[in-house]
């Protein structure tokens, strides 16, 4: 057996190779670029990161439709959709900064790890200069963190937890969708008008970040109105059959059931609560009430007739009659044959807002595009006058309170808007939810 002698030169070579290996992940972009994935050619690549498999795949498919439509409109194709009603006229229908928009897609699978992996792939391999999309707060927070590290802008899709623009906010991240704090502030007064101030609420809450956030907000605002909270019960995510959690409600003496559930959990818990007769029950001499704080029209279809008369909140609804909403519904409906969901709307808006900010900034560099969005006031995108607040990158606009429709005219017509809560009523100080934006990252440091 021969022995190989390791010399000083070998040692140096090995050290250099190992050192380069360790350093590689930290050097996200080649030095030839001024910022991560600076577009050099005639095109700019956007990354649409949506759930294409898993429980929220249908919502993800609707998001993707909206992004495709937005890319068409930005490139000057189709009828232009909400670009015709958008208050900013910076976009000229020739792409962004003269570059045609192309896109790549990723599958979040509604799992934080998978969402980060697909976003990373789109940034590193496909050269995406911006990542957008998603249908859950845990994936949004995970991808937002990744984009901050990578030095690209993240335009969140459907994410409703306070944390996204609260304790987990990042300079490179922006959210158009509303949050649980706004849902609570909007729903509270409507619930008081509908059910009075002498009520006892029983909460069933999905046992994860969004559920806790939603429960806290609704509890805070209903207790301010004089309601008592009988119990807050945490239910496992994806429990399927919630009957063992609903039967205690029957004998509790509570007269309101708040279902802090979303997606499949919401469909199942609401359906089963109605099956147990809660919607038609009388307790303490009052009609029993069920509240679903966050509604999704796509999900509400799954609960069928069980949503009738049930209050909730939503970011946008296709039945709105402002010019922006009508233009979007027309554009989307003619292309796909059905109306868009709130997830599709928020994603379309995010793509347009990003493109507009880049156009106004004259660059794709995050540290210049971000400030162009900060404090940006706009109208014509379906939610009335809206502002991207500079201090937390959260959009502030009116919030819709909706109710399950008693006499739907089609399978899409399941919710009706009962109140448009003005922005002033749902606004809160940025510091209330904690967190720090920190500095922008262009990916060159």
């Amino acid at each position: 057996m021969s022995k190989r002698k390791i010399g000083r030169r070998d040692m140096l070579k090995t050290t250099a190779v190992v050192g380069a290996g360790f350093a590689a992940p930290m050097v996200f972009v080649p030095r030839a670029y001024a910022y991560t994935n600076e577009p050099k050619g005639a095109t700019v690549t956007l990354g649409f990161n949506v759930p294409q498999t898993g429980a929220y795949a249908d919502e993800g498919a609707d998001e993707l439709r909206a992004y495709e439509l937005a890319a068409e409109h930005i490139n000057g194709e189709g009828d232009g959709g909400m670009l015709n009603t958008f208050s900013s006229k910076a976009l000229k229908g020739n792409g962004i900064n003269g570059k045609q928009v192309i896109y790549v897609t990723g599958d979040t699978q509604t799992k934080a790890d998978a969402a980060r992996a697909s976003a990373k792939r789109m940034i590193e391999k496909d050269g995406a200069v911006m990542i957008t999309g998603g249908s859950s707060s845990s994936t949004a927070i995970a991808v937002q963190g990744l984009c901050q590290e990578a030095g690209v802008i993240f335009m969140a899709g459907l994410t409703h937890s306070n944390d996204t623009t609260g304790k987990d906010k990042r300079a490179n991240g922006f959210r158009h969708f509303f949050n649980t704090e706004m849902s609570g502030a909007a729903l509270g007064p409507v619930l008081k008008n509908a059910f009075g101030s002498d009520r006892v609420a029983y909460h069933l809450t999905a046992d994860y970040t969004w559920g806790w956030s939603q429960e806290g907000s609704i509890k805070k605002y209903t207790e301010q109105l004089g309601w008592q909270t009988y119990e807050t019960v945490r239910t496992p995510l994806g429990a399927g059959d919630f009957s063992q959690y609903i039967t205690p409600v029957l004998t509790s003496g509570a007269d309101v059931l708040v279902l802090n559930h979303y997606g499949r959990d919401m469909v199942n818990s609401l359906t089963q609560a109605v099956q147990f007769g809660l919607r038609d029950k009388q307790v303490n001499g009052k009609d029993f009430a069920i509240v679903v704080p966050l509604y999704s029209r796509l999900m509400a279809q799954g609960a069928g007739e069980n949503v009738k008369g049930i209050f909730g909140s939503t970011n946008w609804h296709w039945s709105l009659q402002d010019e922006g909403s009508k233009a979007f519904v027309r554009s989307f409906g003619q292309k796909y044959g059905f109306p868009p969901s709130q997830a599709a709307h928020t994603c379309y808006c995010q793509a347009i807002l990003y493109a507009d900010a880049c156009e106004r900034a004259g660059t794709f560099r995050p540290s210049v595009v971000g400030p162009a969005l900060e404090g940006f006031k706009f109208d014509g995108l379906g939610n009335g006058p809206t502002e991207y607040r500079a201090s937390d990158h959260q959009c502030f606009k009116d919030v819709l309170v909706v109710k399950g429709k008693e006499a739907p005219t089609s399978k899409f017509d399941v919710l009706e808007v009962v109140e448009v809560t003005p922005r002033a009523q749902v606004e809160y100080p940025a510091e209330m939810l904690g967190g720090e934006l920190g500095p922008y990252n262009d990916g060159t440091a």
Partner: protein
Amino acid sequence: MDAILLQILNGLDKGGAYALIALGLTITFGTLGVVNFAHGALFMLGAFCAVSVKALLSLEQVTEDATQLTAWGTPLEVRVPYVESWFGDFGTVLLDYSVPVSILVAIPVMLLIGVVMERGLIRFFYKRPHADQILVTFGLAIVLQEIVKGAFGANPIPQPAPDVAKGMIDFGVAVGMDAGNVVYPMWRLVYFLFSVAVIAGVFAFLQFTTFGMVVRAGMADRETVGLLGIDVDRRFTIVFGIAAMVAGLAGLMYTPILSPDYHMGMDFLVLSFVVVVVGGMGSLPGAVAAGFLLGILQSFASMNEVKSILPGIDQIIIYLIAVIILLVRPRGLMGRKGVMEH
């Protein structure tokens, strides 16, 4: 007392589903020696038989009303189900009873799926280790899930119970309590009774028919039965089909309780395996008893009074009971000596 009675009822209907799935799993394991991780997918396929039948019955005649426009500017479509325009009131009743009616479709369909699954895939894995069987059947379950998702989407699809079974039953009055104290959804009681009837039917079939006698003999000693000139394999194929049918019917009748989606089988699969282990591998009465027992205990563990003493107990109770029973009775409640012991 009211709360306890409600949780017992709740445990019985939930236990009915566990027992039906576990029964099929045990039959498959006892006869073929196969650990079938695709059994939950059969529960899901049964549910989607109901979805398919309803979709077929709901096929609509579409006419455009040019005088009215949709929100996106196209003429409004007026939709009337064919069955209603062809059969009038009978068509409406047929739509209302789509879940029970779909049993007639599900029985042959699930039998066929079971036979095809066994002949086309499972039989090649009889002599392979259990790990291989688990891998292949789990893979099959994922394939079936994805097919269903591709065809029906990812969102739950509501399947209402017939109008006559949508209401509540005042169970308290039936047991001498004040009216209104223990009211329970009628369909859940229907489901419990249905599960008892199916279980009784399977036991009667195995106990009182010649076919069942041969199957039981084959479960006890396959080789000897084969030496008697009886084609055990053919009978076991049919037994696999019956197990698939039982799982399918369990899923089908569960659809008004839990709106079906492609993932619903997986939710029940793991729990059902625990039920089989607690009941005792290969023991049919054990699987049924454990199904109802764990259903009721799971319901009790979700009571606020219990959770205030043991927080989080509702999420671990089934596994905790499994650990305790396996420590005290390693073969499960009614396990047979020699099954899964080598």
